[in-house]
């Protein structure tokens, strides 16, 4: 009796739970009428989007973790940035992800003085915050003032810092004009201005004066207080579950018919556990877009394209580059006085022919095939081929997989297998064997290590893989400098201007990991790269800068401070219901032009 009841109740529970699989939901089609409606008038000289669309509907996407803050100035984590930097807040300038060129934003125009020291930005007339308060130059000045405040940490600040550790002078000349006065020309000025998101003085000045700006607008903010200038404003945030955005009724863009943007009424951003869950939700039709799809998931997803009415977009090589690097740091540890790297090994590692031999030994095509399911390209420079503005194929020295060439180069520097054990020895008889460090939590890098080990074995070099936690890898790179070789990756700056990667290129840069923090450049080519990059830092003219970058690319790929490996293709997926959909491999991939998207069904 009891048994029957117990069994029955379990069955009932399970069946009930399975059968009541909820299917109700709001309608997500577009209605043609903006709801909530727009308020006030658009600026007299609005940003005009060259296209049209229809109003209404809801757009649903997911991100893999909670935002850390809604404060666009202090935000550093990618979840917060993904939500607020763009959809909710904007900057003085914009970036067209397709052409990768800087466009106008809340400033309709700007000019620089001939010496590059004075920059003037003109705001559009009649801009409003999302609460209807006029947007003026004072708000811009306020945003830059908090950004430059030494007590407030933010990622935009450091790129404005001048050689005497001061920041440019920012003045509100009148309600519509902002002027920056610099002490030295800054080639990255426009890019830098485009990284400072604008916040309302009337809401945040009190917090700044009270010294609590860093914690203002945290995730517990009252949505009504979060006054925005982007296409959307925050309606609701439930930790671990979702962020809901709604149209900013005062947004400053219009389309070519004079209709105001954005078209889509509401944006729901689900917070999911990880990208696996995000993918499953997308497949189940619960979300509209995947802003990234892993190459290994592509075939499975493509198989369902027709049945589920979505499309997977191959955007070509992405901007992130994987590299392999041997330690070329001849220094000694200050603490123990011991050399960072075994002197025998440093002799190999600092020999450019050895590095070139390694590069020839690597089968990058196989790497692309095995790890990225064939979706990727070999790369031989720190700049990915995805970078339309700065990549220059002709300047780059390439190392296609060639075991014989690798062996010949090794033989040239006296490395060959003399005792027949399958491992080559250097001219002094030391077997060529070293450690390869990478982070064990990253499956792709571990896979690369496995393949590199196999590739190097083919030319007689013995490599042992040392997989350690990510933080340990970074500590080794930045502080201990005690690794033999390492696999790492570079994210791309946005916009992908190499001027943002100075720390990698300059020999005194602290992320010039092959031999960081050099007092004077160790090699002539490092000296030359320093010279070129420093000149670029002071040059405003893009054409001049590009010429210098070409030479940098050549020196880099010829001398191989790091051996760049591959760039995976960037994939996104979206339901077939979006107008003006122009995905890009730059953030935020599918929705960088969120204000222009509209629903077609």
């Amino acid at each position: 009796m009891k048994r029957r009841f117990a069994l029955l109740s379990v069955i009932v529970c399970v069946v009930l739970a399975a059968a009541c699989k909820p299917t109700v939901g709001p309608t997500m089609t577009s209605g043609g009428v903006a709801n909530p409606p727009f308020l006030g008038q658009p600026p007299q000289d609005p940003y005009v989007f060259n296209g049209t669309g229809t109003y209404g509907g809801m757009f649903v996407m997911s991100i893999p973790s909670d935002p850390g803050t809604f404060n666009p100035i202090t935000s550093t984590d990618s979840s917060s940035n993904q939500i607020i930097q763009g959809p909710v807040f904007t900057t003085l300038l914009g970036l067209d992800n397709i052409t990768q060129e800087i466009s106008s934003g809340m400033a309709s125009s700007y000019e620089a003085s001939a010496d590059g020291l004075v920059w003037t930005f003109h705001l559009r007339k009649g801009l409003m915050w999302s609460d209807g308060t006029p947007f003026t130059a004072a708000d811009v000045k306020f945003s830059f003032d908090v950004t430059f405040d030494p007590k407030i940490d933010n990622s935009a600040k450091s790129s404005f810092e001048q050689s005497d550790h001061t920041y440019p002078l920012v003045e509100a000349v009148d309600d519509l004009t902002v002027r920056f006065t610099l002490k030295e020309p800054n080639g990255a000025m426009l890019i830098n201005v485009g990284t400072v998101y604008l916040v309302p003085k009337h809401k945040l000045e009190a917090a700044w004066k009270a010294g609590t700006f860093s914690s203002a607008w945290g995730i517990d903010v009252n949505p009504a207080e979060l006054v925005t200038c982007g296409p959307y404003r925050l309606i609701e945030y439930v930790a671990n579950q979702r962020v809901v955005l709604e149209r900013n009724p005062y947004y400053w863009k219009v389309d070519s018919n004079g209709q105001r943007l954005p078209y889509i009424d509401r944006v729901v951003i689900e917070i999911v556990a990880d990208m696996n869950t995000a993918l499953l939700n997308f497949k189940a039709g619960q979300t509209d877009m995947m802003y990234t799809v892993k190459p290994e998931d592509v075939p499975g997803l493509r198989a369902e394209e027709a049945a589920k009415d979505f499309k997977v977009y191959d955007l070509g090589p992405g901007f992130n580059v994987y590299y392999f690097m041997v330690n070329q740091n001849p220094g000694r540890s200050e603490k123990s006085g011991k050399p960072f790297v075994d002197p025998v090994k440093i002799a190999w590692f600092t020999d450019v022919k050895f590095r070139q031999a390694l590069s020839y030994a690597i089968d990058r095509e196989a790497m692309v095939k095995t790890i990225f399911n064939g979706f990727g390209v070999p790369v031989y420079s720190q700049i990915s081929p995805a970078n339309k503005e700065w990549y220059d194929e002709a300047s780059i020295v390439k190392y296609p997989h060639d075991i014989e060439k690798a062996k010949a180069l090794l033989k040239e520097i006296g490395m060959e297998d003399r005792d027949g054990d399958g491992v080559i020895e250097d001219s002094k008889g030391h077997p060529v064997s070293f450690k390869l460090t990478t982070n064990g939590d990253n499956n792709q890098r571990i896979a690369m290590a496995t393949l590199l080990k196999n590739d190097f074995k083919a030319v007689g070099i013995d490599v042992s893989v040392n997989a350690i936690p990510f933080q340990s890898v970074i500590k080794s790179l930045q502080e201990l400098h005690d690794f033999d070789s390492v696999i790492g990756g570079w994210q791309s700056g946005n916009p992908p201007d190499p001027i943002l990667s100075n720390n990698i290129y300059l020999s005194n840069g602290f992320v010039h990991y092959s031999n960081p923090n050099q007092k004077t450049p160790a090699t002539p080519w490092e000296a030359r790269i320093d010279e070129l990059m420093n000149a670029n830092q002071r040059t405003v003219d893009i054409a001049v800068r590009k010429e210098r970058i070409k030479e940098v690319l050549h020196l880099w790929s010829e001398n191989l401070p790091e051996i760049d490996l591959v760039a995976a293709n960037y994939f996104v997926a979206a339901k077939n219901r979006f107008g003006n959909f122009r995905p890009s491999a730059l953030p935020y991939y599918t929705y960088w032009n969120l204000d222009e998207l509209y629903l077609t069904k």
Partner: protein
Amino acid sequence: MSIEPEPSAAPAPRASRTPWQTLWLKLRKNRAAMLALYVLVALYMVAVFADFLAPYHYETLDQDRPFQAPMLLRIHIRDASGSLTRPFIYGTRVANPSLKLYEDDTSETFPIRLFGRGDRHDLLWLVPTDRHLFTVDAPARLYLFGSDQFGRDIFSRILYGSRVSLSVGLIGIAISTLIGMLVGGVAGYYGGAIDFLLMRVVELILALPSLYLILVLRQSFGSDLTSIQIYLLIVLILSFIGWASEARVIRGMVLSLKEQEYVVAAEALGFSRMWIVVKHILPNTLSFVIVTATLSVPFYILGEVALSYLGVGIQEPEASWGNMLRAAQNVSYLTEYTWVITPGFFIFAAVMAWNVFGDGLRDAADPRTER
């Protein structure tokens, strides 16, 4: 997990048989336990001879054959004409490289050779040889349980992985039992301040959220270790957590044992206390200790699996059952190439065998079940 049998375990000796003989006789009557014992012996033998039994080395990869499906059921014993022949497989070719689909190429057959040549290895860590129990000729590859992302043989990796995953249990339990007996024995016998102090330490360790602590420990001592060192570190960390519960129970037993006549007698004869603990008291707890130890082996096996699955245990390209399961973290691998979870069945089998065997051992060591 309750791994503590009734503490009244010291079996009453009979005149005719030693306690061990009694135990063995009783154990032999328990069919399930004996079956588990055979399974365990088989598994551990496989681990010892892994390099010979596996057709390939665990690192041997073939980048042209990622995620090839298991061939266990595609070994043919009849040739085209239908007559019996030595087992063979067909060559394969790639039908769809991005979906990882392969098809048999029936124009070529590759017989399975006994004692063929393959990757070099040291049989029993001593005899260098390149012979394997069974192989197929190149360019074909025999993937009994399928291949992984790199075209490595999952079957071979499971065999090599068994060395790690199975020995973790034995070594771990040896270390923690040793510590547990010593600490428990000393605390129970000496009593007083020593007892108080040791038991507070034991309580502290028992109260720790252990798996999380293991994670922190692993991060603290993570960098720059060889695979052997990582392995030892994992065993040590697991034993560090594991000894406490044993120490506590042994202390309880020692407390009751030390009042017994022979201990009192030994004390009267002037033997040192340490001597008495080691020579007289601890041996009496032995049958209990063995039962507890057997039943705790799964904790170590599962501990290694959990750590490696989370990416902080045994690292690629080394094979262990836990890190092989990591491939299944990717849901599309799990659904498209389901054979990547094969190691799970082996973990299950090993843990189950230890549990059943330990249970049988407990029954056999329990005087109340004597009939």
